[in-house]
């Protein structure tokens, strides 16, 4: 064999690759163009892609969890406990799944507001905007149906909120509840499971086909860092099992997950359940759906359309405020529980209204008085910074070797800590190693760009 055999194998592999690629060109796969950027771009340009990456991570870890999970009243909690405590790597898969879900929601919200303020829903992107909002709502429902499946006290509180809200819808509520939830917890848990693992993800995939643009920016270094961040978060804040739900024992107070506390705050104001829990959130979503049709301004920049910008800021502030408020429970143990949890509706809704007014005023003031001055200043003393960043070959070599050495140490450390049941440390080191990998690919990119010069 020797040199010649080596070449032949190389050629064979190349031929095989070309053969496959040629055939794949006939498939829908090549309708999508995956763009791998040659340099570090602002992540604002591909937040959607990062959200999609977390969705894929969730799909993979979710399938793995489904091998052990049992959707039944008596076995749901124990099966998750089994995954967490006995199944090899179960605790890590479960934590990745949980934190990837958090990451997906945060990225989706970030993505939404970036697109909103930069006016990206214009220029024939209206359909992409609307499907984006729908995917966002589905993402919320997916997270919501997911964290209830464990059937601990916290999960059951969330099931209760959702189920009684569905029932509270006038006229169709009872039928709707019967379709969505069935009757009794045995049905509910099974329905939530089917929604979580099949119906909602399937809908999301279908809607994503009319949301994803043809050109997708995929930046491996950033994706690696995102994966690392999820692992590090998993190690730092591992998700607890909580108390298993027992219908014979009244539950203690628990606050729902952070993405429902906003809704929880609305419910705790004590006004009608349907208005607080269904109508107001629906109006909020409908407003977002309508934005492209309200905003007829041709300009994309946010300071040219102060009304939309103001309302956008108001929306963001309202999400933040209600979310934080939902966590707050009056610590005064002397007064009764109802009083401790009650949120004064007048105060609450007035503050929400003030936020809208204040944001719109601030936005108008900025775009009429402040922004023109700033841009004047900017044009008058415009200094072009032309800063080129080059690294010497030796420095790169040293950096790369150091980075790989650290990666090796982290990997050994991770395996070792896993063996010693120090799962948190294991996850953090895995995450750190993945992050370094991200930096390394970035270095490689800089390096090959210099080569090209």
């Amino acid at each position: 064999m020797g040199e010649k055999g080596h070449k032949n194998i190389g050629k064979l592999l190349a031929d095989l690759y070309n053969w496959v690629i040629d055939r794949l060109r006939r498939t829908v796969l090549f309708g999508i163009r995956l763009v791998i950027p040659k340099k570090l771009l602002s992540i604002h340009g591909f937040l959607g892609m990062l959200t999609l990456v977390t969705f894929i991570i969730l799909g993979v870890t979710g399938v793995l969890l489904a091998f052990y999970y049992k959707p039944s009243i008596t076995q749901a909690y124990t099966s998750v406990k089994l995954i967490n405590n006995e199944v090899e790597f179960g605790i890590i898969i479960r934590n990745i799944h949980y934190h990837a879900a958090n990451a997906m929601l945060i990225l989706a919200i970030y993505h939404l507001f970036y697109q909103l303020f930069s006016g990206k829903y214009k220029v024939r992107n209206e359909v992409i905007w609307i499907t984006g909002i729908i995917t966002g709502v589905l993402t919320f429902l997916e997270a919501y149906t997911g964290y209830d499946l464990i059937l601990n006290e916290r999960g059951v509180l969330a099931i209760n909120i959702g189920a009684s809200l569905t029932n509270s819808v006038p006229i169709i509520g009872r039928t709707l509840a019967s379709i969505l939830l069935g009757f009794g917890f045995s049905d509910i848990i099974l329905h939530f499971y089917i929604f979580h693992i099949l119906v909602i993800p399937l809908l999301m995939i279908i809607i994503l086909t009319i949301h994803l643009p043809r050109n997708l920016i995929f930046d491996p270094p950033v994706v690696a860092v995102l994966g690392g961040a999820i692992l590090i978060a998993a190690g730092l804040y591992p998700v607890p099992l909580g108390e298993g739900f027992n219908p014979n024992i009244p539950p203690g107070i628990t606050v729902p997950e952070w993405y429902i506390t906003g809704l929880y705050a609305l419910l705790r104001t004590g006004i009608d359940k349907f208005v607080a829990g269904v109508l107001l959130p629906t109006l909020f979503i409908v407003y977002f759906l309508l934005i492209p049709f309200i905003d007829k301004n041709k300009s994309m920049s946010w300071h040219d359309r102060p009304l939309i910008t103001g309302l956008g800021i108001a929306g963001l502030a309202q999400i933040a405020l209600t979310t934080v408020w939902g966590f707050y429970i009056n610590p005064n143990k002397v007064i009764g529980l109802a009083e401790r949890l009650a949120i004064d509706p007048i105060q609450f809704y007035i503050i929400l209204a003030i936020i809208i007014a204040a944001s719109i005023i601030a936005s108008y003031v900025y775009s009429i008085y402040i922004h023109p001055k700033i841009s004047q200043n900017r044009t008058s003393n415009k200094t072009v910074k032309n800063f080129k960043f080059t690294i010497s070959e030796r420095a790169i070599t040293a950096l790369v070797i150091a980075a790989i050495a650290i990666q090796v140490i982290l990997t050994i450390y991770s395996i070792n800590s896993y063996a010693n049941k120090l799962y948190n440390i294991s996850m953090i080191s895995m995450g750190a190693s993945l992050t370094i990998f991200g930096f390394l690919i970035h270095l490689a990119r800089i390096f090959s760009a210099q080569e090209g010069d």
Partner: protein
Amino acid sequence: MKRRDFVKGIVLASGIVGITPFIPAGKFLVTTFSFKYVRQKIANVNDIPPNNRLLFTYPKTGDIEQDSDPFRKFLLIRLPNGEFKAYSAVCLHLWCIIDYKPDKVDIECPCHGSTYNAQTGVAFKGPASKQFNKTLPEVKLEIDDNGDIYANGVIGVIGYGREGA
């Protein structure tokens, strides 16, 4: 009428007629049945002293999975005056499990403090009292000569209340 339009019309009509039998199939998704509330013995009067309560499962199936359903949990209450009452243990607000408090002679929810009158099952405090439907579903009780207490049916819908009450 052109021949073309006629053919189109026929195809359309045929399609509609063909689909019609499938329309009621939407009912497949609607769970119209709930549990079968048959007559069942739940306790004896001697099991429960006055001003006390007992959590019971109704209808009991013998299947652990089914019987652990909160929708099958009811509170049998013996009021201080000796009278027996049984209500669904699912709070009408957000479905937590409620409990009878002997010292206050009322039924309280641990979640957001809804409080129900033990005599009538009507919420008078907390979020459930502000709802349209604030009366707990009640179990029809029968006590025979031996002092055995039987449950025989439920008035109202669990988690939703007694409609119109």
